[in-house]
């Protein structure tokens, strides 16, 4: 940081609003794709684990194992295969969501009270009807908690994609460039906007959850966080 500069150069921000908007949208879509694809995979895996208790241990071990791979190493390993493409960014992001999502989705299904399942069976629900009409709605609070944690973590992780050059870094690029050129305003813009995005998405998802679970009014899922939000080792 050069001496005498103002803390925030507002003029620069106004001149670069287009740039800021572009990178914000890029950041959000990189994270959004990762969470959406990650959820689809994790949901299928979790349903499998709920039906086949034998695969549950191996599945959580693998998902947990993936989470411990340093992101730098993973990018490096992928570059020879997928090159400097969007896949190289998305594959690690998707893999990192699995740990959080699988855990929460499985916990959501596990949390359906056994008396409810027994009553459903006793009244003549078929297996599919029970899954979609009873188990899934009751698992929603924990599933949404998982998506919230996954989304917030992924929004943070997108920053690391700046390592792959200037094409996919989203808001992370501002931080990288700001540090390289000793220009604090860029760092602030990148940091503040990425935090704002994370908070916004989290609030939005809480609203979605409330709409999906009118029956749980008064006991919001905030008090059930099965694991703390975190960033993978090496990030």
């Amino acid at each position, binding site marked *: 940081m050069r001496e005498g500069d103002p803390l925030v150069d507002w003029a620069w921000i106004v001149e670069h609003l287009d740039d800021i908007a572009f990178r914000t949208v890029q950041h959000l879509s990189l994270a959004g794709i990762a969470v959406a694809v990650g959820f689809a995979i994790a949901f299928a895996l979790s349903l499998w684990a709920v039906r086949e208790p034998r695969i549950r241990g191996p599945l959580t071990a693998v998902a947990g194992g993936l989470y411990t791979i340093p992101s730098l190493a993973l990018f490096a390993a992928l570059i020879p295969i997928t090159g400097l493409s969007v896949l190289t960014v998305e594959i690690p992001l998707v893999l990192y969501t699995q740990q959080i999502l699988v855990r929460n989705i499985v916990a959501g299904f596990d949390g359906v*009270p056994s*008396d*409810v*399942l*027994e*009553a*459903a*069976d*006793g*009244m*003549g*629900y*078929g297996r599919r*009807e029970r899954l979609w009409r*009873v188990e899934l*709605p*009751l698992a929603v609070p924990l599933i949404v908690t998982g998506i919230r944690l996954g989304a917030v973590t992924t929004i943070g992780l997108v920053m690391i994609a700046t390592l792959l050059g200037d094409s996919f870094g989203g808001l992370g690029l501002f931080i990288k460039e700001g540090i390289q050129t000793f220009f604090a305003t860029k760092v602030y813009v990148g940091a503040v906007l990425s935090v704002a995005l994370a908070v916004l998405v989290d609030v939005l998802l809480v609203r979605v959850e409330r709409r999906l*679970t*009118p*029956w*749980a*009014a008064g006991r919001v899922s905030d008090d059930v966080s099965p694991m703390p939000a975190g960033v993978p080792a090496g990030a």
Partner: protein
Amino acid sequence: MAATTTGDGGGATTVEFEHVSKRYPGTRAGEGAAVDDLSLTIPAGRIAVLVGPSGCGKTTSLKMVNRLIEPTSGRILLDGADAAQRDVTELRRGIGYVIQQTGLFPHQTIGENVATVPSLLGWTKERQRERAEELLALVGLAPATYRDRYPSQLSGGERQRVGVARALAADPPIMLMDEPFGAVDPIVRDRLQNEFLRLQEDLAKTIIFVTHDIDEAIKMGDLVAVLQVGGKLAQFGPPAEILAAPASDFVARFVGADRGLKRLSLSRVRELTLMPAVTVRIGEAGEAVRARIEADAFHSALLVDDARRPIGWVRPAAVVGDGPVSEAMAESMSPLLDPRTTLKDALSMLLDADVQAGIAVDQGGAVLGLVTADMIAERMRGPDALAAPGDRA
């Protein structure tokens, strides 16, 4: 709970257990069976209670009827047809199921919960809604108040009522009830039991009811099956018979040393031959009254008003001279007994009061006759002590 119900299934079904056994893998034949060669017949429209200590296989037996558990051997016949041959979901939709923890769906409104089976059966929304409201009213929950609430907003007793309403939704001929009133406090339980018995007078379903509480079994059952650990049927019969003549030491121990007292709750004051009371009306002449009182075994007469409602006991010493008998001459009063009072409650009231006789009165409060502790004891020893209403004597 009041009124009658309408529906499309209706009727009742005879349920027969035919040499039914359940053994879990890892146990050899002859040892550690959950249910061991159970044979019994539950006549259509009756309540049969399966009672016994934990591990006696009562819940397992119940769940074999709707095939939540499949028997290892033997058959369960519903009106003569083997349950194992029926499509399992179709079978279950035709059997009401009530469990202790209610199993209400937390994510559905009370109305939706009650309409569960109608919805599975593909009834129109309109018909589901009508049926749900009808049933909520039947179990004593105002539909307008409860229909749109969620289970978490109800008390334990209210949730149990919803559970019963839900089980009745498609008017099944058979109801399975697994400790349905076990999770509520004793006062609420007593009320739910009474309401359910009144409901059953109209519904006349075939009901299999599981409990570990012998008092509940005696109260709810037309027939009681006592099971012992290892899933063996120890005795099956009307409650009065089980209390009066336990078939084994196990049954005698299980029903308790106070089984004589428990039998008292199965008989009511109206079954006694009442002792006629010497009555005196206000304003009668003293001399004649004194003579009548002295001739009486109790040396007391009952002072009554014009409608023959009792005012109190009059002793000869209180009637001085030949003046008219007045209300002031009455000394003590006896407990008043409705003909529907159980002999257990009647005896309890007699023991509490410091008089020898209770007064049975009709609905208008007029004297019917006297009841003494001796009469109750005599009744329990008597030849018709075994008679249970409408059953084999």
